[in-house]
């Protein structure tokens, strides 16, 4: 795996929320071995026993999901869809990629699955990832300014609430100029 590299495991300085050992990583269906998944506020990382691994940046993670299907060949796992390409195999696939490169409109998608041996940890892993994702919004999303509330839980609210943030009249107007 050419994209695997060695780096120190994330610690408190990276905002490590959860560390899950004995977790298998699967990239697009190919097993990468067993290692430790680090869910940190800065990024999501996985390192195998020899210290080799990879990191995923939250802005590139399109979605993550909990898979509870025990009949799935992997068993219960955490699914992560990434909007990026990861080199997998040898030179053969590189040649193929050159031919397919005309597909500029299609965004690259890589599917990761993290399979912890401790299935009871999955819920916490999912939640930790949700929390970290919320810390990395796109910088373009500046127009949702007045809405300062936390996550809006649909089931917790009975439905009809009108939430209008009061603004001070004239707060955006220029100050009066005395001539």
């Amino acid at each position, binding site marked *: 795996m050419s994209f695997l590299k060695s780096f120190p495991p994330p610690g408190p300085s990276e905002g490590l929320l959860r560390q899950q050992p004995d977790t298998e990583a699967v990239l697009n269906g190919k097993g990468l071995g067993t290692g430790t998944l680090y869910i940190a506020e800065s990024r999501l990382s996985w390192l195998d026993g020899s210290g080799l691994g990879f990191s995923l940046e939250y802005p590139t993670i399109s979605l*993550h999901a909990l898979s509870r299907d025990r009949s799935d060949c992997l068993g219960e796992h955490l699914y992560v869809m990434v909007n990026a390409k990861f080199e997998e195999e040898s030179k053969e696939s590189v040649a193929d990629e050159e031919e397919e490169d005309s597909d500029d409109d*299609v965004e690259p998608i890589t599917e990761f699955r993290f399979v912890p041996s401790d299935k009871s940890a999955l819920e916490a892993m999912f939640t930790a990832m949700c929390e970290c994702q919320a810390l990395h919004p*796109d910088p373009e*999303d500046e127009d949702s300014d007045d809405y300062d509330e936390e996550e809006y839980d*649909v089931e917790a609210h009975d439905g*009809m609430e009108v939430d209008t943030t009061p603004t001070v009249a004239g707060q955006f107007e220029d100050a009066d100029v005395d001539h």
Partner: protein
Amino acid sequence: LIPTGYFKESRDMSHSGRNDLSICGTLHSVDQYLNIKLTDISVTDPEKYPHMLSAKNCFIRGSVVRYVQLPADEVYIQLLQDAVRKEALQQKQ
């Protein structure tokens, strides 16, 4: 204006990411970045993403959602219109 208060009991919402993946599910929650949590999801194009077939709950990054499709009868249209009108008036002042 984030009209999350107008969903009665959201079911059958479809999302479309940039790679045209449609996910249908029950809306659990939304945050200020329009990150969306869905439960009991089903993927409408499982041939493309077979690995998602077994997924039950998911968290979708708001920035990759192209559109959200809601069943019309699950939304209080009148309330929504009133709130939007109110918001538009406020912004004009």
